[in-house]
Structure formats: structure tokens, C-alpha cells
């Protein structure tokens, strides 16, 4: 099968959905004539023109709000944040209007908007540009949050997000944009809320999302080669909806679990998952639930130290060995 980058996979999803539905358009800072700050939309403006690829001014609250309003009338906007870190200036639009308009109208209206962009640390840009707001956003009923860990998922989930009648926030990762995965030529979509077992195993479960799933997969390799321990890796794919069944199934299978995320630990996604496991599968646990997260401080700039702050495979292995 052909291999393409995570970046190319997202671009293909956008192009296919633009061609499929005339209501789909992409808006954001530098998405059109500049070809995208991270080149995700490269070439799309030349192909689809001003109507479908719209350069927005640096005005996140304004253009995200505009997208939500436009979606109420049936358009399917795909709004790009150059970084999800910029969502904070648009929080009222995203999380009051995006999440709650449908509810407050008693279900009379829908907000079929997709908001996408990278949400990750690890690029030495300091605390303001290194946010991972999936936990914050998922705390708002009405929103769906997707964190693809690879090119195949990025394409399939992006297409699903655009077709979804609810607001979907897709959180990508700049460190993955250039990496390649196998992606079929033929069209496919990936259901929302279905976790994916990246590697089967029987001794311990690593549950992760986004790039942390790749880290967990690497850690599983080390567990096998150096410690003869067979780890299962479950990639959540979406934070909300959350595939609780898949989480419980892997825990019941291996009876040991390490949760891995690049989110900060305090009130992080894995705090929620840990709660679900202890409530629903307490009797299946042979050891305490362990977590590996980014170190609980604002993201540091210094290059070697930021590498330490974000989870790596060695840290996951060390934590796993505590309960094996």
C-alpha cells in the first residue's frame, strides 16, 4: 500500500470533502494563498479558489464565531487554528456558542462545524504555543474531540468530522505532519468513538491518544524486546465520544494499565479514564492504574528539557515495570 504523510492525509480529506459537498469550505489564517502555515492546505486554493479556501485575518474569535453562525444555516465550515493554542481567544465562541447553541434551543438548531489544527508541545515554542486543550474542550457537552495519532486515522476521522452534524474539534500534531503511514487510495471513513488496538498484547495495557499512542507503541516494543512483556496498545482516537467498551475490554484482558498522554496530568483526560476504569473494572485490576503525562508545569522552552517534560517510551516502560 502507498505511504503518505499525516499532512497529505489531512489535505486529501479536505479536498475530497470539498468536492463531495458544496457547503464545505476551509477558513483560517494563511490557509489559502500562503498554502497553510504548516502546508496542510498546500495547493488547495489554486485548485478550489477563493470561495472554498478563505484566508481569515488574525481574528480567531471573529472567524470561529462566523463559522458557527454560517454552520447554523447549513454550511459545513472547516476552521483552521494555526495552533490550537490560539483557541483561548475564541473560547466564548467555541464553548458557549459551539457547544451549547443546540442544547439551549432545545435541539432546534445544529452546529455542524469542524475546527482543526495542531495541539501539541515538543517544538520549543514555549508555554503559549504548546497547549493540549483536548481535556478542556471535552469537558463541554455538545462538543466532540478527536486526536488522530497517524495518517490513516487523520484522514478517515477528518472526513467523518466534516460530515458530522455536531461540532467536532480535531487536534493534530505538528511532529506527526511529516511522518508517513500506509493510507489506501480508495475512499474510507472512520467511525467516531471507536478506539483502535494498535498492538495486541496480553500482559499490560497502554491506553493513549494522539502522538502519545505512538510513544506507547514504541514502549510496547521495548517491553517485548527487553523485558519479554507483551503489552497491548489502545489508541483512543476520539476523546469524546469515548470508547468506554474498548477501554474496559483491554483492562479486563490484561488486568494492568498504564495511561499515556501528552496532556498535563491535573484534570487531564487520563484522570477521567482512570476514574472510569476503577468504577467499571475494579475487580479486574491486579495493580494500581498508572499514568504517564507531560510534567505538570507550563511547557518549558529549553530544548533538552522539553524532551524530558513530554512522555517518551523510556518513561512509559519505567512506569509499566512498576506494576509488572
Amino acid at each position, binding site marked *: 500500500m502507498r505511504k503518505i504523510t499525516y499532512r497529505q492525509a489531512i489535505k486529501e480529506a479536505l479536498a475530497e470533502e470539498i468536492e463531495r459537498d458544496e457547503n464545505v469550505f476551509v477558513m483560517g489564517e494563511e490557509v489559502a494563498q500562503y498554502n497553510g502555515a504548516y502546508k496542510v492546505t498546500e495547493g488547495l486554493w489554486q485548485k478550489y479558489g477563493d470561495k472554498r479556501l478563505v484566508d481569515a485575518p488574525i481574528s480567531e474569535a471573529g472567524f470561529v464565531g462566523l463559522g458557527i453562525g454560517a454552520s447554523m*444555516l447549513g454550511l459545513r465550515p472547516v476552521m483552521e487554528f494555526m495552533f490550537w493554542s490560539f483557541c483561548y481567544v475564541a473560547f466564548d465562541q467555541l464553548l*458557549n456558542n459551539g457547544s451549547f447553541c443546540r442544547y439551549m434551543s432545545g435541539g432546534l438548531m445544529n452546529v455542524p462545524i469542524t475546527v482543526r489544527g495542531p495541539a501539541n508541545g515538543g517544538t520549543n515554542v514555549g508555554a503559549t504555543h504548546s497547549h493540549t486543550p483536548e481535556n478542556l474542550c471535552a469537558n463541554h457537552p455538545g462538543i466532540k474531540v478527536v486526536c488522530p495519532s497517524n495518517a490513516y486515522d487523520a484522514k478517515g476521522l477528518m472526513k467523518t468530522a466534516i460530515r458530522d452534524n455536531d461540532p467536532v474539534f480535531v487536534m493534530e500534531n505538528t511532529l506527526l505532519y511529516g511522518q508517513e503511514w500506509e493510507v489506501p487510495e480508495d475512499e474510507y471513513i472512520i467511525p467516531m468513538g471507536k478506539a483502535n488496538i494498535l498492538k495486541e498484547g496480553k500482559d499490560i495495557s497502554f491506553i493513549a491518544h494522539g502522538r502519545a499512542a505512538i510513544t506507547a507503541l514504541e514502549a510496547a516494543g521495548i517491553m517485548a524486546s527487553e523485558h519479554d512483556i507483551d503489552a497491548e496498545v489502545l489508541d483512543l482516537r476520539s476523546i469524546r*465520544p469515548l470508547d468506554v467498551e474498548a477501554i474496559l475490554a483491554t483492562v479486563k484482558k490484561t488486568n494492568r494499565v498504564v495511561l499515556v498522554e501528552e496532556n498535563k496530568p491535573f484534570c487531564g483526560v487520563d484522570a477521567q479514564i482512570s476514574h472510569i476504569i476503577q468504577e467499571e473494572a475494579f475487580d479486574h485490576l491486579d495493580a494500581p492504574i498508572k499514568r504517564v503525562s507531560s510534567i505538570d508545569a507550563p511547557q518549558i522552552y529549553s530544548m533538552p528539557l522539553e524532551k524530558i517534560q513530554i512522555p517518551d517510551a523510556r518513561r512509559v516502560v519505567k512506569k509499566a515495570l512498576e506494576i509488572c
Partner: protein
Amino acid sequence: MSDTDTGTENLLYPGQEQEPSAEELAKTEINAALSPEDKLRLYTEMVRIRAFEARSLRAYQQGKIGGFLHLYEGQEAVAVGCVSLMGPDDHIITAYRDHGHALAVGMTMNECMAEMFGKATGCSKGKGGSMHFFAPDKNYWGGHGIVGGQVPLGTGLAFALKYQGKKGCALAFMGDGAVNQGAVHEAFNLAGLWQLPIIFVIENNKYSMGTSQARSSAYDDCLAKRGEAYDMDWGVVNGNNLYHVREKTAEAIKRAHTDSRPTVLEMFTYRYRGHSVADANAEKYREKKEIQDYKTNRDPIALFGNILKAEGLLKDEQAKEIEKTARAEADAAAQFADKSPFPNPEAILEDSYWSVDNKGKDADIDALNQGRIIFEDGGLLKKK
């Protein structure tokens, strides 16, 4: 000090030309097109809004309505005048002082009152309350609680109309306090930059909660002038004069429909009540004399009633009858709301996600949404 004391009562703001007379306004194309029945209907709409608000206040004081209650009394001509010009592809959105616009677009007193009572028969099934009325079938997109937050949404409605090639426009209402919110300026810029068919209506009732315009906004003459910074046409309106509201709004709608140009209209009006009913200082940050002056000399219903009387279309007896009927309708709405059931506890979980509400109705949707959303089972509500 009120303007009457300075002898400038006919000026919309200091230095501006005099407002056209009622006779001149009645002769303008848009107002001359009104039939006698139309005129009485618009008058009745304003009276109905006032009666509804008066009954709402009583219900609030009786403890039937929770939270906040932002009343529209005194501002009726703005909503009624603007809405009277809307065509099939014109859309409207406003902030939390939303009852007047709701009734003007044709929402019933029953569904609005029931919403405030928190009842299942409310327009939003009791999920939005006073600040969050919606009627998408009537092109009414709320009803929004955060000051200025609705203005980018309204800009998006206009964007969608232009994108879809429709000859329509968006009317986005806000108060004078909202013009200092960043989101409003961002929306102004987008509307000017992309030449969107929108009318931003600033309902200037002089106070952003308890803070007067002079203490909250940097301005010379008026707030609408800020539109110049964003390449938008702008104008000022006597928001208490229904004919003037219609005249200026019709120009703006035409500009939107034919030239796809945005407009900022500042409508000078006044709210008789506090910011909300919970505003205990409504008579402290402004003089009682000022409130009385507006009620006596510039009341939108009285002004339009006098015009209709002068035109020979309305008699005192008839005016009393219209008021009596409106009060009876509002009383009936309160009774309807009172008798209506509260939503079932299960309703808390409904209407949040489209895909959850429509589960099992469409195989394609179910295929896309297979996962379980946390607490979809309701936690305490539907514990296994």
C-alpha cells in the same frame, strides 16, 4: 440631565441634523407602503410586547421565573420596526434582552412564557430560559447570553447567505455596552472586509447595566461612527419612532440586498426597567426625572399611537381595547406556562448532540457514531 432640559430634544445626538418630522417619515416609500391594517398590526405588536413584559415581571416577582429577566419595555419600536421589514431570506439574532424580537418574529406568548417558567412547552423545552429564545423556522437565531458573543454568529449568517448566493441579509442586534467587546470589533472587521450583507443594530438604551455610555465608551457623537473604521456605512436613528426605525433600516437592508454592503445603525432608545429585574440600582445610576421624561415624552407606543390617531387610523377606545386584549393574551400565556409540565429529568440529556438524539433513525449516522459518549447513560439519572 436629559436632552429636554437643553432644548435639543429633536436632535439624535449633539450636532446632528434634526430628525425628520412624523409627516415626512410617513410619506417615505417604505412607510407609505404600509396599509392601515399593517400600521395597526405594528402598533399592536408593540403593545403586545409591553403587556408580555409586564406579565413576565409579575411572574418573576411571584417566583415563577428563575435567574435573570431582562425586560424590553421602552425599546419596542426597534424590534418591531426592524422585523417588519424582514423577507424570507433575512435572518435575525440578538442578545439576552430578546423577548421583543421573539414576539416580533411571530413566536407565541405561550412558548416564550413557558420557556421562562422552565416548562417542557417552552420554545427551548425549558433549556434556555429568558435569555435564550430561538425560532430557526422564523429565521430567529436567538437569544444569546454573553455580551457581544452573538455578533460574530450574525456575521456568519450573513456570510452563509452570500456564500449560498441568496438575496438576504442578517440583522444582528446588540446593546450599547456590547460595542466595547473585542468579538464585536472582530465581527465588524470581517463584515467590512468581506462586504457581508448585514445590519448591525446597536440598541443604545444609554446604560450598559449600570454604567452610562459616557463612562464606558470612547466616542465623540455616537457609537455607530465606529463603523467608519471598518469601511461600513452607518447611521443614527430615533429608536423610539417606528417610522424612523423602518426608514433607516429599509435603506440598510436594501444596501445589503443589492450591494452586499454592511451597515451599522445606532438606535437611540431607553429601557424603563433596570438592566435586569435583579438590578436594584435602576433608579440610582440615572435620575428618576430621566426615566419619567422618556415615559412621558418619548414613549415609542404613545408616539406611534399619536401618529396613527393623527392619521385617523386609531381612536382612544380602540387603543384601550388593543391594550386590554394584549394583557389578556399575556395573562393566558402565564396560565398556560403555569399549567404546563416541567420537563422530565431524562430531558437533561437530550438535545446536546444531534447524533445521540438521532441514534437508530439513520443507519449512516449510526455507522459514523458508534462510540459511547461519557455519561450518555445519564450517570445518576439512568444508573444501571
